[in-house]
């Protein structure tokens, strides 16, 4: 079995668990590779078209290759009033990419997120689902520097 087959196999006993399989694949690859998506469709008995429909429905799932670090900037109202727009510009400048893009070295992908439920300490960004609180321009530099 290939690596992704093993990953999918690990979720096979979860009834309807294709989304769990997608999560597991993303934990490994940061996105869902095409062949893995097809395999997951087979394993869960749904059509490939449907599996693709599912994968593209959820904003946390990606069917295109992303960077090793997926940075998501929360843009919901509480973060918005805490200066999310300005912070987003900072991140774009720091990485030299626009939202939705991946850095040339394949290290960072920048995305927007809706509320991540950490509104006690806005603005919030997440990197590979790990939240960072009260992010300021200064903090941002440290955070990015920590991404090896």
């Amino acid at each position, binding site marked *: 079995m290939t690596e992704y087959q093993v990953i999918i196999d690990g979720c096979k006993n979860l009834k*309807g668990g294709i989304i769990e399989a997608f999560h597991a694949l993303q934990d490994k690859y940061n996105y869902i590779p095409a062949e893995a998506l097809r395999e997951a469709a087979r394993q869960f008995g749904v059509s490939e078209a449907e599996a693709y429909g599912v994968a593209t429905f959820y904003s946390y799932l990606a069917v295109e290759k992303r960077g090793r670090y997926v940075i998501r900037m929360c843009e*919901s109202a509480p973060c*918005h009033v805490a200066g999310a727009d300005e912070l987003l510009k900072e991140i774009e400048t720091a990485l030299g990419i626009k939202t939705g893009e991946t850095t040339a070295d394949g290290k960072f992908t920048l995305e927007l997120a809706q509320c991540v439920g950490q509104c006690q300490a806005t603005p919030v960004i997440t990197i590979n689902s790990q939240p960072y609180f009260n992010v300021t321009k200064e903090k941002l530099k440290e955070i990015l520097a920590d991404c090896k």
Partner: protein
Amino acid sequence: MANEKRVLLEYADQIDPRKAEDYIKVGGYKGLEKARSMNRRDLIEEVKKSGLRGRGGAGFNAGMKWSFVPQYADTKYVVCNFDEGEPGTYKDRIICEKNAQALLEGMAICATAIDSKQGYIYCRGEYPFMVKLLNDAVQSAKASGALGDFDIEIRMGAGAYVCGEETALIESIEGHRGEPRFKPPFPGVSGLWSQPTVVNNVETFACLPYILTNGADWFAGIGAASYPGTKVITLTGDIENPTYFEVPTDYLLRDVIYKLGGGIKDGKKFKAVQVGGTSGAFIPEQNLDTPIDFDSMAAIGASLGSGAVLVLDESRDIVDVVTRISKFFEHESCGKCNPCREGTWRCREIMERINAGKACPEDIEKLTVLSRVMKNAALCGLGQAAPIPIDSTLKYFKQEYSCKLITL
């Protein structure tokens, strides 16, 4: 904190939410024990009598919801909605972080009432660490024997606000696109895998152990009579204490902001408060002396909803905030029904136009009619609620819109 009434969060940070034994030490799983000693009808009656209403958007009586589940079905499911996606809301996370076992006990009480053997917790994808915590908690509860033969599986969402809608959530657990189903049939009759299913959120379930332990009358006596109990609220925005509190439901909104919240940040003046998350109405100063309970809020055209409280100070541009909110709904519309899919898109376009100073008075009319049709005709609560922030600000803060319009 003064004025709080902590029920769900009484032992916050004193017990390990993962550990059933910690919870048992402070009286946990007594409610379940009692529930199991009762016959099902009495149990449901007891929950009805407590007056517990869903701590989500609809505020439906929990016991009543359970009573719709047909007895004859072989398989029934208990599903916990832990997809709190309303921006500014994190109270279910707090309840789990502080008292996860109460959630499990609550689910088990529901399972006892409807005779279910399988539960699911649908945890939002933004909380992968909560999935770990809950898995540990379930394992511990199973090991302690407290849950008996009731199993709980944790499923993770993947970034779709609409999955907070119970039928979309069910679709998602089934591995589908999280598109809401039309109702009827309601999940109580045909839910997960077409079996009768009770869906409640974390906070609702977490109330149950205390209702059973202390009695329905005790619970019914807390807070507002028509919506008894406590409510965990989360404060965000221009507020001195941006944190969470548990308060009785007859607590005044003004007190939430000025007593618990410590007032407006940096000594500025109040402008508006949005309660219940992003789909909630904006409330002006004149309505602040309203208790936060479901019906009182409804009476001023607002909703308690998730209990999120977003405070805006005098310097805030309401139109800008609402424009941002309209972008949220455009992003989160599932796209299934026409009014919501197209409506949220056009709402955002018009709001952006207004916010950019490029709109004319007719655009306000367009927003008004669009809002009305979305509310009237959208398939699910998302599309129906999406225009509320626009509607409410057009009502109370029209001036802010008007001054951005091009007038000839």
